[in-house]
């Protein structure tokens, strides 16, 4: 009898279990009901699906829309765009699959009540750029959540899923998940025939630029705690491109987005002395990446690279020239509403610092790195491709199934599919859900069984931080310093410092090399040992403890991948000082990893890249 044996265990049976109720999870839940009319469809969310995930505060644009109905773009155009932006390496089969379906998701959003901006003359959606359309998206997430709630058998809010469960009979097959209710403290055992991981990517694995109170002002939401990666990694699913972290050029301090400013408002950047600077660094960049610098549009990482070089040359800060565009009252309104609709914090920074972009050109900065799978980057799980055309090497089961049987993914979870954004993540959730229903149909009566031993062991592990605190707390008078436990914030800050200094964060100018990565792994190893002693004062801190454990596992994966890829594929995202050039001879490939929980070993391998050739 442990200290916390009074906690109840709740069992939930489902056919399809969707972990995470953000855009991808809502898409999965909705679609699962269409194909699985009689199935038990459960969505479990750490917060409240009404406002959860990266789209919680809204969006002012949908960044992935083809416009096939007006012949604006075709799916293969989007594949070429994403390939180009990610320096040649994306899963083109998966990207095409999202692109061919994404318009149907967006059309449903409009039908459900999402206010789309439309050209009064043509009736078409207003384009912010080639792929982006503009919306009044303050309630984007509540609208999408309503659709998911209508479709689900039940939505469980405020349950943090900590681990997946495996089938006790058939090796390598998923059987459910466990977690705890952040309000009641009850332990939850979800038994499922198929599991779709639609959890969030990783903020707060690198030290953020903001300090103290402002550390929550990260570019990606602070609640994106890498569960997208930790859950599959723990059960041995193969991951891909985990080294492909992203660094964002954004407005300073608030990290307000620049997309609408560049594309729609036609603002542009200049150095501190009013000069254009990107062309200054053309030869420098070409020496690193060759012809990739000549591609259009210029890949995001290479624009970052020019920005960083200009700063190092002593001509910062870089500013966005807004004064011209903002003389137009319509553009001024768009500029402000863009923030109010998705990054309120930037409006606050400007109000506080008396920056009115009509009269002042605001500063830009490059963010700390993030690991996620849906923006201009594509870290995540290695997934099976669409049945109708994916090459054999990309196809071993159902669409979006990982290398673990019955385990599907969408959104930040799935690797290789950059530039899916909100609409593409929702769409990928739909794709995964249809495949999961087909998987269940084919399963017949051979349903997975959870093992009592397994979930009872996990139950002890899940609540251990509460026990650590309760025991250790008696040793000290008061305060936060204990010789026997670390608090979650203390562990988080150590993780951020290690990643920052050894794995290419802001303090080294995104630079790393093999000796740094080797030392980084040693320090992550001791942090992992210390996290066995993490202390949680209450259920909220228990959530923070498990978020940290998920972040650590994702960070270890990032570090192993960064070590494995001996080249600098994306200068401006990070640099391998010992291999400064892009190397298509040896590294025009995906990196794959597999973690073995028993031994703690990470196995690395390469996988081929297939391109659409025509």
């Amino acid at each position, binding site marked *: 009898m442990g200290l916390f044996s009074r906690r109840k265990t709740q069992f939930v049976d489902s056919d399809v279990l969707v972990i995470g109720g953000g855009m991808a999870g809502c898409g999965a839940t909705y679609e699962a009901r269409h194909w699985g009319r009689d199935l038990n469809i459960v969505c479990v969310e750490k917060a409240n699906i009404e406002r959860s995930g990266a789209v919680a505060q809204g969006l002012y644009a949908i960044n992935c829309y083809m416009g096939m109905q007006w012949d604006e773009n075709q*799916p293969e155009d989007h594949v070429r765009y994403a390939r180009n932006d990610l320096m040649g390496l994306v899963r083109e089969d998966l990207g095409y699959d999202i692109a061919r379906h994404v318009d149907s998701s967006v059309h449903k959003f409009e039908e*459900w009540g999402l206010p789309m901006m439309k050209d009064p003359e043509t009736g078409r959606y207003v384009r912010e750029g080639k792929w982006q359309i503009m919306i009044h998206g303050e309630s984007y997430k509540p609208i999408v959540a309503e659709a998911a709630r209508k479709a689900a058998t039940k939505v469980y809010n405020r349950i943090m899923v900590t681990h997946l469960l495996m089938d006790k009979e058939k090796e390598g097959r998923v059987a459910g998940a466990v977690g705890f209710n952040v309000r009641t403290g009850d332990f939850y055992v979800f038994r499922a025939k198929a599991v779709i991981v639609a959890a969030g990517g990783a903020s707060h694995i690198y030290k953020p630029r903001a300090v103290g109170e402002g550390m929550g002002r990260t570019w990606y939401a602070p609640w994106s705690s890498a569960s997208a990666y930790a859950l599959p990694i723990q059960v041995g699913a193969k991951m891909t491109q985990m080294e492909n972290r992203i660094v964002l050029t954004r407005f300073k301090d608030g990290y307000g987005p620049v997309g609408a400013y560049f594309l729609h408002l036609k603002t542009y950047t200049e150095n501190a002395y009013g000069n254009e600077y990107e062309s200054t660094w053309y030869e420098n960049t070409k020496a690193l990446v060759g012809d990739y610098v000549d591609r259009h549009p210029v890949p995001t990482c290479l624009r970052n690279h020019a920005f960083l070089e200009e700063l190092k040359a002593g001509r910062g800060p870089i500013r966005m020239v807004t004064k011209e565009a903002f003389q137009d009252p319509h553009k001024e*309104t768009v500029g402000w509403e863009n923030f109010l609709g998705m990054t*309120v914090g930037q409006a606050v920074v400007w*109000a506080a610092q008396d920056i009115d972009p009509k009269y002042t050109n605001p500063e830009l900065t490059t963010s700390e790195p993030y690991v996620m799978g849906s923006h201009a980057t594509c870290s995540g799980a290695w997934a099976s491709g669409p049945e109708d*055309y994916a090459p054999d090497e990309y196809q071993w089961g159902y669409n979006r199934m990982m290398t673990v049987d019955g385990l599907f993914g969408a959104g930040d979870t799935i690797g290789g599919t950059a530039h899916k954004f909100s609409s593409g993540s929702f769409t990928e959730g739909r794709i995964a859900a249809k495949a999961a229903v087909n998987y269940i149909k084919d399963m017949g009566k051979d349903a997975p069984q959870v093992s009592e031993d397994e979930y009872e062991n996990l139950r002890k592990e899940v609540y251990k931080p509460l026990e650590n605190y309760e025991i250790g707390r008696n040793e000290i008078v008061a305060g936060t310093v204990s010789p026997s436990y670390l608090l979650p914030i203390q562990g988080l800050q150590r993780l951020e410092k290690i990643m920052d200094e050894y794995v290419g964060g802001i303090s080294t100018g995104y630079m790393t090399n093999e000796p740094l990565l080797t030392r980084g792994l040693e320090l992550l190893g001791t942090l992992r040992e210390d996290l066995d002693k993490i202390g949680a004062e209450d259920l909220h801190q228990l959530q923070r403890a498990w978020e940290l454990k998920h972040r650590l596992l994702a960070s270890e994966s990032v570090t192993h991948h960064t070590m494995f890829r001996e080249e600098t594929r994306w200068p401006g995202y990070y640099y391998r000082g010992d291999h400064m050039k892009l190397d*298509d001879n040896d590294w025009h490939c995906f990196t794959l990893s597999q973690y073995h929980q028993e031994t703690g070993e990470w196995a690395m391998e390469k996988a081929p890249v297939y391109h659409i050739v025509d």
Partner: protein
Amino acid sequence: MPTFVYMTRCDGCGHCVDICPSDIMHIDKTYRRAYNIEPNMCWECYSCVKACPQNAIDARGYADFAPLGHSVRVLREEDKGTISWKVKFRNGHEKNFESPIRTTKWGTIPSPAELPPPSEEDYKSQELAHEPDVLNIDGGLPALTPDQLKKGVV
């Protein structure tokens, strides 16, 4: 900008506790009112501010980079389908904005279970719910052929 709660306006209803994506709005045990327990994990998403029936929650820019004296206030009206913002600069200047948030009535999205059920054929196709009709294109769902994907450097 982390949020904070005005003592005289909060009645402890807990709407902010239910909605906060970061789980940082909690009820103070002594005062029975809400407060932000962890400002450094606040994304300034305004979910709690919008959800508060008493307009008791406001935000003050992060202390490490935002000078005092500003405010960004919001009024979200679901019945009207609008959101209104008032941005007040430190120097006293103000800007006001209003946007639509939804074009249909809340709660009117149908469950996909209300659609006609898919046929056995549909399960084998690559089409998702509502497709191909909702794509609004001729020729059905686009597809590649396996021979269009090849190894090499492009």
